[in-house]
Protein backbone atom coordinates (compact mmCIF):
# COMPACT_ATOMS: atom_id res chain seq x y z
CA UNK A 1 0.00 0.00 0.00
CA UNK A 2 2.87 2.32 0.73
CA UNK A 3 4.15 1.62 -2.76
CA UNK A 4 0.71 2.42 -4.16
CA UNK A 5 0.68 5.81 -2.46
CA UNK A 6 4.10 6.60 -3.83
CA UNK A 7 2.80 5.77 -7.28
CA UNK A 8 -0.09 8.15 -6.72
CA UNK A 9 2.25 10.95 -5.67
CA UNK A 10 4.37 10.35 -8.74
CA UNK A 11 1.38 10.43 -11.06
CA UNK A 12 0.14 13.63 -9.45
CA UNK A 13 3.53 15.18 -10.23
CA UNK A 14 3.42 13.97 -13.81
CA UNK A 15 -0.09 15.38 -14.20
CA UNK A 16 1.07 18.79 -13.02
CA UNK A 17 4.05 18.79 -15.35
CA UNK A 18 2.25 17.95 -18.59
CA UNK A 19 -0.24 20.75 -18.97
CA UNK A 20 0.67 23.52 -21.33
CA UNK A 21 0.06 23.19 -24.97
CA UNK A 22 0.93 26.46 -26.65
CA UNK A 23 -2.31 28.24 -27.07
CA UNK A 24 -2.79 30.56 -30.07
CA UNK A 25 -2.60 34.06 -28.63
CA UNK A 26 -4.37 35.58 -31.61
CA UNK A 27 -7.55 33.66 -30.80
CA UNK A 28 -7.91 34.87 -27.25
CA UNK A 29 -9.40 38.23 -28.17
CA UNK A 30 -12.62 39.63 -29.44
CA UNK A 31 -16.23 38.52 -29.48
CA UNK A 32 -15.63 34.76 -29.58
CA UNK A 33 -12.34 33.96 -27.86
CA UNK A 34 -11.16 30.36 -28.01
CA UNK A 35 -11.19 29.26 -24.41
CA UNK A 36 -8.81 26.44 -23.40
CA UNK A 37 -9.85 23.68 -21.01
CA UNK A 38 -9.49 24.69 -17.35
CA UNK A 39 -6.42 23.33 -15.57
CA UNK A 40 -5.90 22.57 -11.90
CA UNK A 41 -2.44 23.09 -10.44
CA UNK A 42 -0.19 22.19 -7.56
CA UNK A 43 1.64 25.42 -8.31
CA UNK A 44 -0.54 27.83 -10.31
CA UNK A 45 1.43 29.68 -13.00
CA UNK A 46 2.80 33.00 -11.83
CA UNK A 47 4.96 35.68 -13.32
CA UNK A 48 5.83 38.96 -11.70
CA UNK A 49 8.14 41.72 -12.85
CA UNK A 50 10.56 43.38 -10.49
CA UNK A 51 9.43 46.97 -9.92
CA UNK A 52 12.15 49.48 -10.83
CA UNK A 53 10.21 52.70 -11.56
CA UNK A 54 10.93 55.33 -14.21
CA UNK A 55 14.22 57.10 -14.67
CA UNK A 56 13.98 60.91 -14.68
CA UNK A 57 14.03 61.09 -18.49
CA UNK A 58 12.17 57.86 -19.24
CA UNK A 59 8.62 57.76 -20.55
CA UNK A 60 6.31 55.05 -21.91
CA UNK A 61 6.32 54.53 -25.68
CA UNK A 62 3.64 55.74 -28.07
CA UNK A 63 3.04 54.97 -31.76
CA UNK A 64 4.42 57.20 -34.51
CA UNK A 65 2.38 60.35 -34.78
CA UNK A 66 1.99 60.75 -31.02
CA UNK A 67 4.04 62.23 -28.21
CA UNK A 68 3.99 61.43 -24.50
CA UNK A 69 5.03 63.55 -21.55
CA UNK A 70 4.82 63.39 -17.78
CA UNK A 71 2.19 65.74 -16.40
CA UNK A 72 3.48 64.89 -12.93
CA UNK A 73 5.98 62.47 -11.43
CA UNK A 74 6.79 61.40 -7.89
CA UNK A 75 3.14 61.11 -6.90
CA UNK A 76 1.94 58.63 -4.26
CA UNK A 77 0.11 55.81 -6.01
CA UNK A 78 -1.99 57.72 -8.57
CA UNK A 79 -4.80 55.38 -9.59
CA UNK A 80 -7.45 57.55 -11.15
CA UNK A 81 -7.76 60.87 -12.95
CA UNK A 82 -10.54 63.33 -13.64
CA UNK A 83 -9.67 66.05 -16.14
CA UNK A 84 -11.63 69.27 -15.58
CA UNK A 85 -12.95 71.72 -18.15
CA UNK A 86 -10.38 74.41 -17.26
CA UNK A 87 -7.42 72.06 -17.78
CA UNK A 88 -6.95 71.17 -14.11
CA UNK A 89 -6.54 67.47 -13.37
CA UNK A 90 -7.83 65.73 -10.28
CA UNK A 91 -5.71 62.75 -9.31
CA UNK A 92 -6.86 60.06 -6.89
CA UNK A 93 -3.89 58.63 -5.02
CA UNK A 94 -4.73 55.40 -3.29
CA UNK A 95 -3.76 51.99 -2.03
CA UNK A 96 -5.69 48.99 -0.72
CA UNK A 97 -7.25 49.20 2.73
CA UNK A 98 -5.07 46.32 3.94
CA UNK A 99 -7.86 44.72 5.96
CA UNK A 100 -7.77 41.36 4.21
CA UNK A 101 -7.29 38.72 6.89
CA UNK A 102 -5.16 35.60 6.57
CA UNK A 103 -7.83 32.90 6.43
CA UNK A 104 -5.74 30.17 4.80
CA UNK A 105 -2.04 29.31 4.71
CA UNK A 106 -2.13 30.31 1.04
CA UNK A 107 -3.10 33.89 1.91
CA UNK A 108 0.32 34.47 3.48
CA UNK A 109 2.05 33.59 0.20
CA UNK A 110 -0.53 35.44 -1.90
CA UNK A 111 -0.36 38.72 -0.01
CA UNK A 112 3.43 38.72 -0.09
CA UNK A 113 3.46 38.00 -3.81
CA UNK A 114 0.99 40.69 -4.84
CA UNK A 115 2.50 43.23 -2.45
CA UNK A 116 5.80 42.95 -4.32
CA UNK A 117 4.47 44.34 -7.59
CA UNK A 118 3.11 47.59 -6.29
CA UNK A 119 5.03 50.83 -6.06
CA UNK A 120 7.40 51.47 -3.22
CA UNK A 121 5.88 54.78 -2.18
CA UNK A 122 3.19 54.87 0.47
CA UNK A 123 -0.16 55.56 -1.22
CA UNK A 124 -1.58 59.02 -0.57
CA UNK A 125 -5.25 58.01 -0.13
CA UNK A 126 -6.34 61.53 -1.10
CA UNK A 127 -7.41 63.63 -4.07
CA UNK A 128 -4.87 66.02 -5.56
CA UNK A 129 -5.51 68.95 -7.89
CA UNK A 130 -2.81 69.44 -10.53
CA UNK A 131 -2.63 72.72 -12.41
CA UNK A 132 -0.50 73.77 -15.34
CA UNK A 133 -0.16 77.54 -14.88
CA UNK A 134 2.24 78.27 -17.76
CA UNK A 135 0.70 76.06 -20.43
CA UNK A 136 3.75 73.86 -21.08
CA UNK A 137 1.79 70.68 -20.41
CA UNK A 138 3.52 69.95 -17.10
CA UNK A 139 1.63 70.50 -13.86
CA UNK A 140 3.52 73.08 -11.85
CA UNK A 141 1.03 73.64 -9.04
CA UNK A 142 -0.32 70.94 -6.80
CA UNK A 143 -2.80 71.12 -3.96
CA UNK A 144 -4.44 68.52 -1.78
CA UNK A 145 -8.13 68.82 -2.56
CA UNK A 146 -9.40 66.08 -0.24
CA UNK A 147 -7.05 64.48 2.31
CA UNK A 148 -7.40 61.26 4.28
CA UNK A 149 -9.82 59.15 2.29
CA UNK A 150 -10.35 55.44 2.85
CA UNK A 151 -8.83 53.81 -0.26
CA UNK A 152 -10.58 56.09 -2.79
CA UNK A 153 -10.83 55.20 -6.46
CA UNK A 154 -13.86 56.42 -8.42
CA UNK A 155 -14.23 60.15 -9.05
CA UNK A 156 -16.90 62.05 -10.96
CA UNK A 157 -18.11 65.64 -11.29
CA UNK A 158 -21.77 66.45 -11.89
CA UNK A 159 -22.35 70.20 -12.06
CA UNK A 160 -20.98 71.62 -8.83
CA UNK A 161 -20.93 68.32 -6.95
CA UNK A 162 -17.77 66.25 -6.81
CA UNK A 163 -18.30 62.56 -6.04
CA UNK A 164 -15.48 60.40 -4.72
CA UNK A 165 -15.91 56.67 -4.09
CA UNK A 166 -13.95 55.53 -1.06
CA UNK A 167 -13.82 51.77 -0.65
CA UNK A 168 -16.85 51.78 1.68
CA UNK A 169 -18.92 54.82 0.62
CA UNK A 170 -19.54 57.44 -2.05
CA UNK A 171 -18.78 60.92 -0.74
CA UNK A 172 -20.11 64.20 -2.16
CA UNK A 173 -18.36 67.55 -1.95
CA UNK A 174 -19.45 70.98 -3.20
CA UNK A 175 -16.83 72.00 -5.76
CA UNK A 176 -16.53 74.57 -8.51
CA UNK A 177 -14.16 74.08 -11.42
CA UNK A 178 -11.30 76.52 -10.96
CA UNK A 179 -11.34 76.32 -7.16
CA UNK A 180 -8.54 74.61 -5.25
CA UNK A 181 -10.64 73.50 -2.31
CA UNK A 182 -13.92 71.68 -1.71
CA UNK A 183 -16.81 72.26 0.68
CA UNK A 184 -17.61 69.83 3.51
CA UNK A 185 -18.17 66.25 2.40
CA UNK A 186 -21.25 64.16 3.07
CA UNK A 187 -21.88 60.48 2.41
CA UNK A 188 -24.23 59.87 -0.50
CA UNK A 189 -24.45 56.14 0.10
CA UNK A 190 -22.51 53.28 1.64
CA UNK A 191 -20.87 50.62 -0.53
CA UNK A 192 -19.73 47.11 0.46
CA UNK A 193 -16.28 47.65 1.99
CA UNK A 194 -14.69 45.60 4.76
CA UNK A 195 -14.37 43.03 6.14
CA UNK A 196 -11.94 41.36 3.72
CA UNK A 197 -12.48 43.90 0.89
CA UNK A 198 -10.50 41.77 -1.56
CA UNK A 199 -11.26 43.79 -4.71
CA UNK A 200 -11.45 47.19 -3.11
CA UNK A 201 -11.54 49.68 -6.01
CA UNK A 202 -14.98 51.28 -6.40
CA UNK A 203 -15.20 53.00 -9.75
CA UNK A 204 -18.04 55.43 -10.45
CA UNK A 205 -19.45 57.14 -13.51
CA UNK A 206 -22.37 59.58 -13.95
CA UNK A 207 -25.30 58.76 -16.19
CA UNK A 208 -25.43 61.06 -19.23
CA UNK A 209 -28.34 63.01 -17.67
CA UNK A 210 -26.48 63.38 -14.37
CA UNK A 211 -29.27 61.94 -12.21
CA UNK A 212 -27.51 58.69 -11.33
CA UNK A 213 -24.14 57.28 -10.55
CA UNK A 214 -23.06 53.77 -11.49
CA UNK A 215 -20.66 52.15 -9.04
CA UNK A 216 -18.58 49.02 -9.67
CA UNK A 217 -18.06 46.76 -6.66
CA UNK A 218 -15.59 43.89 -7.09
CA UNK A 219 -15.90 40.45 -5.53
CA UNK A 220 -14.51 39.59 -2.10
CA UNK A 221 -12.59 36.57 -3.40
CA UNK A 222 -11.33 34.79 -6.49
CA UNK A 223 -14.27 32.37 -6.72
CA UNK A 224 -16.22 32.63 -3.40
CA UNK A 225 -13.55 30.83 -1.39
CA UNK A 226 -14.42 33.25 1.42
CA UNK A 227 -18.03 32.07 1.35
CA UNK A 228 -21.18 33.42 -0.25
CA UNK A 229 -21.92 35.54 2.82
CA UNK A 230 -18.89 37.67 1.99
CA UNK A 231 -20.26 38.47 -1.48
CA UNK A 232 -23.51 40.30 -0.68
CA UNK A 233 -23.83 43.25 -3.03
CA UNK A 234 -20.46 42.50 -4.61
CA UNK A 235 -19.26 41.47 -8.07
CA UNK A 236 -21.86 43.93 -9.28
CA UNK A 237 -22.59 47.37 -10.62
CA UNK A 238 -24.90 49.46 -8.47
CA UNK A 239 -27.11 52.28 -9.69
CA UNK A 240 -27.22 55.16 -7.19
CA UNK A 241 -29.57 58.13 -7.42
CA UNK A 242 -27.68 61.37 -6.90
CA UNK A 243 -30.64 63.18 -5.33
CA UNK A 244 -31.21 60.91 -2.35
CA UNK A 245 -28.56 58.17 -2.55
CA UNK A 246 -31.14 55.39 -3.02
CA UNK A 247 -29.54 52.48 -4.86
CA UNK A 248 -30.26 49.18 -6.53
CA UNK A 249 -28.25 46.41 -8.16
CA UNK A 250 -27.95 47.27 -11.84
CA UNK A 251 -25.98 44.25 -13.06
CA UNK A 252 -24.40 41.26 -11.31
CA UNK A 253 -21.93 38.43 -11.91
CA UNK A 254 -19.16 40.90 -12.84
CA UNK A 255 -16.14 39.68 -10.87
CA UNK A 256 -14.23 42.96 -10.67
CA UNK A 257 -15.74 45.74 -12.80
CA UNK A 258 -13.75 48.95 -13.27
CA UNK A 259 -13.37 51.67 -15.90
CA UNK A 260 -17.11 52.33 -15.99
CA UNK A 261 -17.86 54.62 -18.98
CA UNK A 262 -20.86 55.54 -21.09
CA UNK A 263 -20.34 55.19 -24.81
CA UNK A 264 -20.23 58.74 -26.20
CA UNK A 265 -23.63 59.99 -27.31
CA UNK A 266 -25.46 56.97 -25.93
CA UNK A 267 -27.00 55.58 -22.77
CA UNK A 268 -24.96 52.40 -23.03
CA UNK A 269 -22.78 51.68 -20.03
CA UNK A 270 -19.50 49.86 -20.64
CA UNK A 271 -17.09 48.32 -18.17
CA UNK A 272 -13.88 46.33 -18.17
CA UNK A 273 -13.85 43.28 -15.91
CA UNK A 274 -11.08 41.22 -14.34
CA UNK A 275 -12.00 37.57 -14.62
CA UNK A 276 -11.02 34.66 -12.35
CA UNK A 277 -7.58 33.20 -11.68
CA UNK A 278 -5.86 29.86 -11.29
CA UNK A 279 -7.50 28.03 -14.19
CA UNK A 280 -4.49 28.43 -16.47
CA UNK A 281 -2.21 30.82 -18.28
CA UNK A 282 -4.91 31.55 -20.84
CA UNK A 283 -8.05 31.26 -18.79
CA UNK A 284 -10.13 33.27 -18.09
CA UNK A 285 -9.66 36.27 -20.43
CA UNK A 286 -10.53 39.65 -18.95
CA UNK A 287 -13.16 41.49 -20.93
CA UNK A 288 -14.79 44.68 -22.10
CA UNK A 289 -18.56 44.64 -22.25
CA UNK A 290 -21.67 46.73 -22.47
CA UNK A 291 -23.77 46.27 -19.36
CA UNK A 292 -27.46 45.46 -19.48
CA UNK A 293 -29.89 46.51 -16.78
CA UNK A 294 -30.54 43.38 -14.71
CA UNK A 295 -27.90 41.42 -16.60
CA UNK A 296 -26.00 38.55 -14.96
CA UNK A 297 -22.49 37.95 -16.30
CA UNK A 298 -21.62 34.61 -14.75
CA UNK A 299 -19.46 35.12 -11.68
CA UNK A 300 -18.94 32.99 -9.70
CA UNK A 301 -20.80 30.09 -11.31
CA UNK A 302 -19.62 30.41 -14.88
CA UNK A 303 -17.59 32.49 -17.33
CA UNK A 304 -18.28 33.58 -20.92
CA UNK A 305 -21.87 32.44 -20.68
CA UNK A 306 -22.24 28.79 -19.83
CA UNK A 307 -18.64 27.72 -19.04
CA UNK A 308 -19.23 26.36 -15.55
CA UNK A 309 -16.46 26.79 -12.96
CA UNK A 310 -16.17 23.40 -11.23
CA UNK A 311 -14.56 25.02 -8.19
CA UNK A 312 -17.80 26.71 -7.16
CA UNK A 313 -20.31 24.78 -5.03
CA UNK A 314 -23.23 24.71 -4.76
CA UNK A 315 -24.02 25.04 -8.47
CA UNK A 316 -26.75 27.33 -9.76
CA UNK A 317 -27.83 26.04 -13.20
CA UNK A 318 -30.74 28.51 -13.35
CA UNK A 319 -28.44 31.50 -13.07
CA UNK A 320 -25.88 29.97 -15.44
CA UNK A 321 -28.66 29.51 -18.01
CA UNK A 322 -29.16 33.27 -18.16
CA UNK A 323 -25.49 34.26 -17.86
CA UNK A 324 -24.57 36.80 -20.53
CA UNK A 325 -21.39 36.22 -22.50
CA UNK A 326 -19.43 39.50 -22.54
CA UNK A 327 -18.94 41.51 -25.73
CA UNK A 328 -15.21 41.40 -26.16
CA UNK A 329 -12.28 39.47 -24.65
CA UNK A 330 -9.21 41.61 -23.92
CA UNK A 331 -6.83 38.69 -23.32
CA UNK A 332 -6.01 36.49 -20.33
CA UNK A 333 -5.07 38.11 -17.02
CA UNK A 334 -4.28 41.55 -18.50
CA UNK A 335 -5.97 43.11 -15.43
CA UNK A 336 -7.95 45.76 -17.31
CA UNK A 337 -8.80 48.54 -14.87
CA UNK A 338 -9.29 51.69 -16.95
CA UNK A 339 -11.47 52.56 -19.93
CA UNK A 340 -11.94 55.73 -21.96
CA UNK A 341 -13.64 56.34 -25.29
CA UNK A 342 -12.17 58.70 -27.87
CA UNK A 343 -15.09 60.92 -28.79
CA UNK A 344 -13.33 63.45 -30.96
CA UNK A 345 -10.63 65.98 -30.27
CA UNK A 346 -7.10 65.69 -31.53
CA UNK A 347 -6.64 61.95 -32.14
CA UNK A 348 -6.73 60.83 -35.81
CA UNK A 349 -10.09 59.77 -37.22
CA UNK A 350 -9.44 56.03 -37.02
CA UNK A 351 -9.34 56.22 -33.22
CA UNK A 352 -12.65 58.05 -32.89
CA UNK A 353 -15.35 56.07 -31.17
CA UNK A 354 -12.79 53.47 -30.10
CA UNK A 355 -11.85 52.43 -26.58
CA UNK A 356 -8.57 52.87 -24.74
CA UNK A 357 -8.05 50.28 -22.02
CA UNK A 358 -5.50 50.54 -19.20
CA UNK A 359 -4.14 47.06 -18.48
CA UNK A 360 -2.46 46.95 -15.08
CA UNK A 361 -0.73 43.69 -16.03
CA UNK A 362 -0.78 40.02 -15.13
CA UNK A 363 0.54 38.03 -12.16
CA UNK A 364 -1.36 34.78 -12.69
CA UNK A 365 0.54 33.74 -15.79
CA UNK A 366 4.10 32.64 -16.58
CA UNK A 367 4.47 35.16 -19.43
CA UNK A 368 3.55 38.76 -18.61
CA UNK A 369 0.45 40.08 -20.35
CA UNK A 370 -1.05 43.56 -20.30
CA UNK A 371 1.18 46.28 -18.81
CA UNK A 372 0.01 48.64 -21.55
CA UNK A 373 -2.77 50.89 -22.73
CA UNK A 374 -4.53 49.01 -25.51
CA UNK A 375 -6.72 50.46 -28.23
CA UNK A 376 -9.90 48.56 -29.11
CA UNK A 377 -11.50 49.65 -32.41
CA UNK A 378 -15.29 50.12 -32.42
CA UNK A 379 -17.75 49.98 -35.28
CA UNK A 380 -21.42 50.98 -34.86
CA UNK A 381 -20.93 51.34 -31.13
CA UNK A 382 -19.54 47.81 -30.71
CA UNK A 383 -15.97 46.60 -30.18
CA UNK A 384 -14.55 44.89 -33.23
CA UNK A 385 -11.24 43.53 -34.50
CA UNK A 386 -8.13 42.97 -32.41
CA UNK A 387 -6.88 45.14 -29.58
CA UNK A 388 -3.73 47.08 -30.50
CA UNK A 389 -0.93 48.00 -28.10
CA UNK A 390 -1.09 51.80 -27.89
CA UNK A 391 1.00 53.01 -24.96
CA UNK A 392 3.74 50.49 -24.11
CA UNK A 393 7.16 50.35 -22.47
CA UNK A 394 5.78 49.90 -18.94
CA UNK A 395 7.80 46.69 -18.77
CA UNK A 396 11.34 46.50 -20.13
CA UNK A 397 13.68 43.51 -19.75
CA UNK A 398 11.16 41.85 -17.45
CA UNK A 399 11.22 44.82 -15.07
CA UNK A 400 8.24 47.06 -14.43
CA UNK A 401 8.78 50.79 -14.68
CA UNK A 402 5.10 51.46 -14.21
CA UNK A 403 1.62 49.98 -14.47
CA UNK A 404 -1.27 51.89 -16.03
CA UNK A 405 -4.50 51.90 -14.00
CA UNK A 406 -6.83 54.38 -15.57
CA UNK A 407 -7.21 56.49 -18.67
CA UNK A 408 -9.23 59.65 -19.40
CA UNK A 409 -9.48 62.17 -22.21
CA UNK A 410 -8.74 65.77 -21.30
CA UNK A 411 -10.96 68.52 -22.76
CA UNK A 412 -8.23 69.28 -25.34
CA UNK A 413 -8.49 65.70 -26.61
CA UNK A 414 -5.20 64.45 -25.18
CA UNK A 415 -5.19 61.12 -23.33
CA UNK A 416 -4.21 61.05 -19.65
CA UNK A 417 -2.92 57.91 -17.94
CA UNK A 418 -2.60 57.24 -14.20
CA UNK A 419 0.40 55.00 -13.47
CA UNK A 420 0.25 53.82 -9.84
CA UNK A 421 3.48 51.85 -9.80
CA UNK A 422 5.47 54.46 -11.73
CA UNK A 423 3.89 57.20 -9.54
CA UNK A 424 3.23 59.35 -12.60
CA UNK A 425 0.46 60.85 -14.71
CA UNK A 426 1.19 60.72 -18.43
CA UNK A 427 -0.30 62.69 -21.29
CA UNK A 428 -0.46 61.42 -24.88
CA UNK A 429 -0.95 63.96 -27.65
CA UNK A 430 -1.38 63.57 -31.35
CA UNK A 431 1.80 65.07 -32.81
CA UNK A 432 -0.21 67.07 -35.33
CA UNK A 433 -2.26 68.77 -32.63
CA UNK A 434 0.16 71.70 -32.48
CA UNK A 435 0.43 71.24 -28.75
CA UNK A 436 3.46 72.52 -26.88
CA UNK A 437 6.44 70.19 -26.98
CA UNK A 438 7.57 70.21 -23.39
CA UNK A 439 11.20 70.06 -22.42
CA UNK A 440 10.75 66.74 -20.58
CA UNK A 441 10.24 64.81 -23.81
CA UNK A 442 13.42 63.58 -25.46
Amino acid sequence: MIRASFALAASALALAACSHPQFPAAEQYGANPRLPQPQLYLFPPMGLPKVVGWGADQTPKVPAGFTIEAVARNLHGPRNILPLANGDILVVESGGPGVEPVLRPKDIVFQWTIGRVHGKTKPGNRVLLLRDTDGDGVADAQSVLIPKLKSPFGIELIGNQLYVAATDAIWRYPFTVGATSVGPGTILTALPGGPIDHHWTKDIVASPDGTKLYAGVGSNSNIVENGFEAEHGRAAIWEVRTDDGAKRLYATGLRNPNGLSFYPGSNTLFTVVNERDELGNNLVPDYLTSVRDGGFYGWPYSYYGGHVDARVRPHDPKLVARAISPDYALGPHVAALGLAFASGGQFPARYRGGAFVAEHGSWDRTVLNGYQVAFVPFANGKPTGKPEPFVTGFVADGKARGRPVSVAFAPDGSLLIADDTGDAVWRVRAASSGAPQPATVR
Partner: protein
Amino acid sequence: MPNPGFRPRASLFGSPIHAMLVHFPIACFVGALFSDLAYVSAPHPQWANFSEWLLAFGELSGVIAALFGAIDLFGSPRGSRPGIAYLHFLGAATVLVLGLFNNLVHARDGWSGVAGTGLLLSVLTVLALLVTGLLGHRLAFVHQERARP
Protein backbone atom coordinates in the same frame (compact mmCIF):
# COMPACT_ATOMS: atom_id res chain seq x y z
CA MET B 1 15.76 -10.27 19.90
CA PRO B 2 18.24 -8.17 21.81
CA ASN B 3 19.28 -4.81 20.34
CA PRO B 4 21.76 -3.55 22.86
CA GLY B 5 22.63 -0.37 20.93
CA PHE B 6 19.14 0.57 19.72
CA ARG B 7 17.54 3.13 22.00
CA PRO B 8 16.18 6.66 21.58
CA ARG B 9 19.08 9.04 21.04
CA ALA B 10 17.07 12.28 21.28
CA SER B 11 15.37 12.30 24.64
CA LEU B 12 14.29 14.69 27.32
CA PHE B 13 14.54 13.42 30.93
CA GLY B 14 14.58 9.90 29.58
CA SER B 15 11.50 10.30 27.35
CA PRO B 16 12.07 10.07 23.59
CA ILE B 17 11.32 13.42 21.91
CA HIS B 18 10.11 11.68 18.76
CA ALA B 19 7.40 9.84 20.70
CA MET B 20 6.34 13.10 22.32
CA LEU B 21 5.97 14.90 18.99
CA VAL B 22 4.27 12.31 16.78
CA HIS B 23 0.85 13.05 18.34
CA PHE B 24 0.74 16.39 16.55
CA PRO B 25 0.94 15.18 12.93
CA ILE B 26 -1.33 12.24 13.77
CA ALA B 27 -4.01 14.50 15.25
CA CYS B 28 -3.67 17.08 12.46
CA PHE B 29 -3.81 14.65 9.53
CA VAL B 30 -6.72 12.70 11.02
CA GLY B 31 -8.47 15.99 11.78
CA ALA B 32 -7.96 17.12 8.17
CA LEU B 33 -9.71 13.98 6.93
CA PHE B 34 -12.72 14.76 9.12
CA SER B 35 -12.89 18.40 8.04
CA ASP B 36 -12.59 17.25 4.39
CA LEU B 37 -15.55 14.95 4.93
CA ALA B 38 -17.48 17.80 6.56
CA TYR B 39 -16.70 20.03 3.55
CA VAL B 40 -17.79 17.58 0.87
CA SER B 41 -21.04 16.91 2.71
CA ALA B 42 -21.78 20.66 3.06
CA PRO B 43 -19.29 22.83 1.18
CA HIS B 44 -18.86 25.74 3.54
CA PRO B 45 -15.37 27.24 3.11
CA GLN B 46 -14.83 27.07 6.88
CA TRP B 47 -14.21 23.31 6.57
CA ALA B 48 -11.81 23.69 3.68
CA ASN B 49 -9.90 26.31 5.68
CA PHE B 50 -9.86 23.95 8.69
CA SER B 51 -8.34 21.26 6.47
CA GLU B 52 -5.71 23.62 5.09
CA TRP B 53 -4.47 24.71 8.52
CA LEU B 54 -4.54 21.14 9.85
CA LEU B 55 -2.58 19.94 6.83
CA ALA B 56 -0.09 22.80 7.16
CA PHE B 57 0.54 22.17 10.87
CA GLY B 58 0.44 18.41 10.30
CA GLU B 59 3.20 18.74 7.74
CA LEU B 60 5.25 21.15 9.85
CA SER B 61 4.99 19.17 13.09
CA GLY B 62 5.45 15.94 11.10
CA VAL B 63 8.75 17.15 9.67
CA ILE B 64 9.98 18.15 13.14
CA ALA B 65 8.90 14.79 14.63
CA ALA B 66 10.56 12.98 11.71
CA LEU B 67 13.84 14.82 12.31
CA PHE B 68 14.00 13.48 15.87
CA GLY B 69 12.96 10.05 14.63
CA ALA B 70 15.79 10.14 12.10
CA ILE B 71 18.23 11.09 14.87
CA ASP B 72 17.07 8.04 16.86
CA LEU B 73 17.42 5.76 13.86
CA PHE B 74 20.66 6.93 12.32
CA GLY B 75 22.23 7.77 15.67
CA SER B 76 22.13 4.07 16.61
CA PRO B 77 24.84 1.66 15.56
CA ARG B 78 24.04 0.23 12.16
CA GLY B 79 24.01 -3.34 13.38
CA SER B 80 21.54 -2.62 16.15
CA ARG B 81 18.78 -1.15 13.95
CA PRO B 82 15.82 -3.53 13.65
CA GLY B 83 14.33 -4.00 10.16
CA ILE B 84 10.98 -2.48 11.12
CA ALA B 85 12.76 0.77 12.01
CA TYR B 86 13.44 1.25 8.30
CA LEU B 87 9.86 0.36 7.45
CA HIS B 88 8.64 2.88 10.03
CA PHE B 89 10.96 5.47 8.47
CA LEU B 90 9.61 4.70 5.01
CA GLY B 91 6.04 4.92 6.29
CA ALA B 92 6.69 8.31 7.88
CA ALA B 93 8.28 9.54 4.65
CA THR B 94 5.18 8.38 2.75
CA VAL B 95 2.94 10.32 5.14
CA LEU B 96 5.00 13.48 4.67
CA VAL B 97 5.13 13.17 0.88
CA LEU B 98 1.37 12.61 0.71
CA GLY B 99 0.89 15.49 3.14
CA LEU B 100 3.01 17.80 1.02
CA PHE B 101 0.99 17.07 -2.10
CA ASN B 102 -2.20 17.40 -0.11
CA ASN B 103 -1.17 20.85 1.11
CA LEU B 104 -0.67 21.98 -2.49
CA VAL B 105 -3.93 20.41 -3.70
CA HIS B 106 -5.87 22.00 -0.83
CA ALA B 107 -4.43 25.42 -1.73
CA ARG B 108 -6.71 25.37 -4.79
CA ASP B 109 -9.77 27.51 -4.36
CA GLY B 110 -13.17 26.10 -3.55
CA TRP B 111 -14.53 22.65 -4.27
CA SER B 112 -11.56 21.50 -6.39
CA GLY B 113 -9.20 21.91 -3.44
CA VAL B 114 -10.97 19.21 -1.45
CA ALA B 115 -13.27 16.98 -3.47
CA GLY B 116 -11.56 14.28 -5.51
CA THR B 117 -7.77 14.39 -5.23
CA GLY B 118 -7.66 16.27 -1.91
CA LEU B 119 -9.99 13.90 -0.10
CA LEU B 120 -8.25 10.87 -1.62
CA LEU B 121 -4.88 12.13 -0.41
CA SER B 122 -6.34 12.75 3.06
CA VAL B 123 -7.63 9.15 3.19
CA LEU B 124 -4.31 7.73 1.97
CA THR B 125 -2.38 9.85 4.48
CA VAL B 126 -4.45 8.50 7.36
CA LEU B 127 -4.09 4.90 6.09
CA ALA B 128 -0.33 5.38 5.82
CA LEU B 129 -0.36 6.85 9.34
CA LEU B 130 -2.15 3.74 10.66
CA VAL B 131 0.54 1.44 9.25
CA THR B 132 3.35 3.75 10.35
CA GLY B 133 1.83 4.04 13.80
CA LEU B 134 1.62 0.25 14.19
CA LEU B 135 5.26 -0.04 13.15
CA GLY B 136 6.15 2.72 15.60
CA HIS B 137 4.40 0.81 18.35
CA ARG B 138 6.43 -2.29 17.49
CA LEU B 139 9.60 -0.18 17.71
CA ALA B 140 8.63 1.17 21.11
CA PHE B 141 8.11 -2.44 22.18
CA VAL B 142 11.64 -3.23 20.99
CA HIS B 143 12.94 -0.32 23.08
CA GLN B 144 11.07 -1.66 26.04
CA GLU B 145 12.53 -5.12 25.57
CA ARG B 146 15.95 -3.54 25.47
CA ALA B 147 15.26 -1.65 28.69
CA ARG B 148 14.05 -4.77 30.54
CA PRO B 149 16.63 -6.15 33.00
